């Protein structure tokens, strides 16, 4: 079972209170982009075994979208943070590097 702490209301929400929003930190390719770029934005996902950044919505609680860093293999949660950022905050990165020294970064 996955338990994520909502950074907006501080509730340690169990998975059934949340809605998944899939991969986070996607760069949007809209009008003017090449078909290849748009296809990659639309369909290509990393789907890693290991560290993953995800969007979640606290749908049965405060209703806010937030981001979470977790490991897809062990379900270890490295941290959650508000969605108003374009890349993972430094403290989350530091926590992941401490736990996964061979991790190659989120890009």
């Amino acid at each position, binding site marked *: 079972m996955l338990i994520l702490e909502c950074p*907006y*209301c*501080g*509730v*340690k*929400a*169990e998975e*059934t*209170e949340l809605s998944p929003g899939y991969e986070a930190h996607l760069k949007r390719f809209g009008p003017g982009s090449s078909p290849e770029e748009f296809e990659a934005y639309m369909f290509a996902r990393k789907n890693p075994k290991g560290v993953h950044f995800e969007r979640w919505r606290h749908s*049965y*609680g*405060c*209703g*806010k979208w937030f981001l979470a860093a977790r490991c897809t293999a062990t379900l270890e949660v490295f941290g959650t943070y508000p969605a108003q950022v374009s890349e993972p905050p430094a403290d989350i990165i530091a926590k992941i590097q401490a736990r996964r020294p061979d991790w190659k970064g989120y890009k």
Partner: protein
Amino acid sequence: MSEPVSALGGASFQGFATIREIGPVGMITLRAKGLKSLEKAVKAVTGTKLPAQRRIEVNGDRACGWMSPDEYLLVLPYGDVQPALASLGKSLGSEHHLAVDVSDARAVFRIEGEKAAQVLRKLSPVDFDTLAPGELRRTRAAQVAAALWQQDGGFTVVCFRSVAGYVMGLLTHSAQPGSELD
């Protein structure tokens, strides 16, 4: 004017805890964040201070609860909603806010008795051992959204009116005599 009617007409059930549908209760959803006159505007309506994160400030039959970083729930007697909306509009003026009467969109239940928490323990993914008095918890009750808080030795549960029958069924079933958790 037509007579206000609560969702289930005040249905009640006596199990190992007492379940009562109460209402109609006046409720206002106030969406606002970081406004200068917010504290004052809320005080004028509910007589309470602005609640901190996840808290609900109760003042007799009025209350103000923290629903999300930019949303508050104002609870007040049904008949006082229109004057309260007018008062909010006046005190917040042109500051960006949204205040809506949601009284008729909600159903409110009271769960009372020594084992009231056990009725809810079975329905919501909430750690009731760490739920502080005066904490407003938005969560789910089985399949539907609900908000609950402790008040006067029992719990108040708020859900959407459209699922009032479902929630009454849940609470009734959960409070069946003989189904206590200890």
